[in-house]
């Protein structure tokens, strides 16, 4: 009963416009002071512990930073050109290329809204010019953008791995096949729709264009290679070089170098009104000035600000998690569910429903911090693989992002496309159906999630 009041408070606060972080924190504090026996000091300790005790969460600011350098530089543009060169000539080609570009950008970035902004801001405009309806364009990008959290790296996966103490590296690997599958399903759907409705197709510009655009995009695509090789190594050539957390920091440094010194889209060497891009040879002092250049500072600041708002939610969600643990709520729920005779199938349905409803109110990472520890013990009891459970949760988060009333990607797409929310909702609907089918597949075919991590890293070790 107390727990119902707790969650009622959280939702109530949020709906009247209290920041999510404060809604979570304040409800937990009130609950603790009323029903618990621990002190306010323990809340402060938990707040500090959110950072000091969870080393893996460090990946979040670093992946955000890497993604910021990549978006500020014109990497998205180059990826889109490459995508169009590859698949633009098919019927519905520009839309298919948009999905493909989202998949590639998702492999550079840990967040879905960031993917929508980076790709959508270019592709939606291009599609309307090429004769697609704006609704169709918005619907495609809104959905494909959700791949940002399914294709590694992924902030949501980092949060899940931290919350239930599984390996981040394993979660990332687990996202690869589902990410490619979901992307492929979207592309096939678009192709079929395009054939039926006779949508426009681009012209085939030849292998030369593929090669040329690939070379242009190469330094951006290299980031994917650095992350994957760095975390997993190349069999027979090199072992891994860094942990997933460190990979994020290395990715940031690399993205900085690519944006400032290779692409020269930003920093001291970039093109200005009175001069073309300069070369490092002519301006060697740029090696130092780039570190303090206003573009560098601005990118660091933007990434820092985003980190602050996301992590403040997560830190307060961890306070709520601490309170739930302290009151042994997960055990009570587990016992209730198990004694009610829940099997794995019924359990997974319940998890999906909880997440789909919760996703209406909550920022995805914050929701995961709270829900994952509640359902994890039951999943283990029922013999569900923790990695499989993680992927199910991520796909649920994706769907939550494109369903009203609160859908992160809906907001962002409506902003990017300059369309009212409800129109975006309708536009996203057909593709939402694809993701639902995909969710059902992922839920009931564990191999989609576990095949690759088990092949590369061996079977999951449940340590607990």
């Amino acid at each position, binding site marked *: 009963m107390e727990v119902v009041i707790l969650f009622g408070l959280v939702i109530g606060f*949020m709906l*009247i*416009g*209290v*920041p999510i*972080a*404060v809604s979570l*924190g*304040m409800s937990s*504090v009130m609950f603790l002071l009323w029903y618990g026996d621990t*002190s*306010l*000091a*323990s*809340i*402060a300790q938990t*707040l*500090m512990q*959110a*950072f*000091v005790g*969870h080393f893996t*969460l*460090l990946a979040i*600011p*670093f992946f955000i*930073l890497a993604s910021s350098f990549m978006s500020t530089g014109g990497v998205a543009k180059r990826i889109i050109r490459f995508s169009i060169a590859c698949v633009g000539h098919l019927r519905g080609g520009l839309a298919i290329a948009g999905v493909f570009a989202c998949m590639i950008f998702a492999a550079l970035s840990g967040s879905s*809204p*960031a993917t929508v*902004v980076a790709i959508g*801001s270019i592709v939606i405009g291009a599609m309307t010019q090429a004769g697609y309806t704006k609704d169709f364009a918005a619907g495609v990008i809104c959905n494909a953008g959700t791949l940002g959290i399914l294709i590694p790296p992924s902030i949501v996966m980092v949060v899940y791995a931290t919350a239930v103490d599984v390996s981040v590296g394993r979660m990332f690997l687990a996202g690869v096949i589902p990410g490619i599958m979901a992307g492929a399903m979207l592309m096939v759907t678009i192709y079929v729709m395009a054939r039926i409705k006779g949508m426009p197709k681009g012209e085939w510009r030849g292998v030369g264009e593929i090669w040329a655009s690939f070379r242009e995009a190469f330094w951006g695509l290299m980031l994917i290679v650095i992350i994957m090789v760095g975390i997993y190594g190349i069999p027979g050539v090199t072992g891994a*070089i*860094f942990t997933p957390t*460190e990979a994020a*920091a*290395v990715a*940031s*440094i690399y993205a900085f170098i690519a944006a400032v010194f290779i692409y020269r889209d930003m920093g001291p060497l970039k093109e200005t009104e009175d001069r073309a891009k300069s070369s490092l040879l002519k301006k060697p002092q740029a090696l130092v000035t780039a570190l303090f250049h206003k573009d560098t*500072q*601005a990118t*660091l*600041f933007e990434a*820092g*600000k985003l*980190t*602050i*708002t*996301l*992590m*403040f*939610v997560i*830190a307060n969600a961890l306070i709520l998690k601490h309170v739930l643990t302290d009151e042994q709520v997960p055990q009570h729920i587990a016992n209730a569910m198990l004694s009610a005779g829940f099997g794995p199938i019924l359990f997974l349905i319940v998890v999906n429903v909880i997440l789909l409803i919760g996703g209406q109110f909550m*920022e995805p990472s914050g929701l995961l911090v709270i829900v994952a520890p509640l359902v994890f013990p039951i999943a283990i009891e029922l013999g569900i693989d923790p990695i499989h459970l993680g992927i199910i949760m991520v796909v649920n988060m994706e769907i939550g992002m494109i369903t009203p*009333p609160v859908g*992160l990607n809906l*907001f*962002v797409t409506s*902003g*990017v496309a*300059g369309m009212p929310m409800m129109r975006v909702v309708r536009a996203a609907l057909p593709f939402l159906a694809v993701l639902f089918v995909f969710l059902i597949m992922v839920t009931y075919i564990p191999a989609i999630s576990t095949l690759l991590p088990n092949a590369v890293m061996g079977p999951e070790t449940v340590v607990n």
Partner: protein
Amino acid sequence: MSSINRAPGISFIDRIEESLISAILGIMTVITFANVVARYVFNANILWALEATVFLFGWLVLLGASYAVKKNAHLGVDAVVDIVPAPVRRVLALISVAVCIVFSCLLLKGAWDYWANFANLPQTTGRWFPTGFEDSFRAKAWYEVNDIPIPEWLRFLEGAMNDGDEYEKLPRFIPYVVLPVSMALLLFRFCQAAVLVWQGKLDRIVASHEVEDELEEMRDQRGEA
């Protein structure tokens, strides 16, 4: 009118806060990168790198939280706020900001109570609200962090805080001081926000998603209002 002061770097204080945010994130990245290089290239280590980075991480977010209040950047749900008439919206905003103020008061007490003994200072008494300072307590300034060595120039703290005993590592009260400081700042910023809401200059204290700034920029470029 969903926000104020969106443009970055308006005031001097803004610039200090923004530079601090950039600097902390930059240092975190460089330390972590340096540790990878030390390990992989030089087969060496920076044993304090991980701990230093997580402390900086805490500093970044806790200090930044008050900046985010000032810039109205904290994530929230404004679906309901959007559909209610203006007078109701004002009432909701006032209630919301009151909740935030109470929250930061409680956290400020908690943060002080947590930090105080580490700095040889008394906690406050009282469960919800401070009713005074405790008479006797166990001083904990001897309590060191795990990995970060104490820099030489901080050695004077040994006499001042640790009965002259040597510190090998940084005492915990140093990284933890961010808690009371940041919670005091948070309270201050929420009070400022409350004034703006009261004056009718602000109708909500949340941003609906994480990329609002980017979208605003895009709208500017398209020439929309």
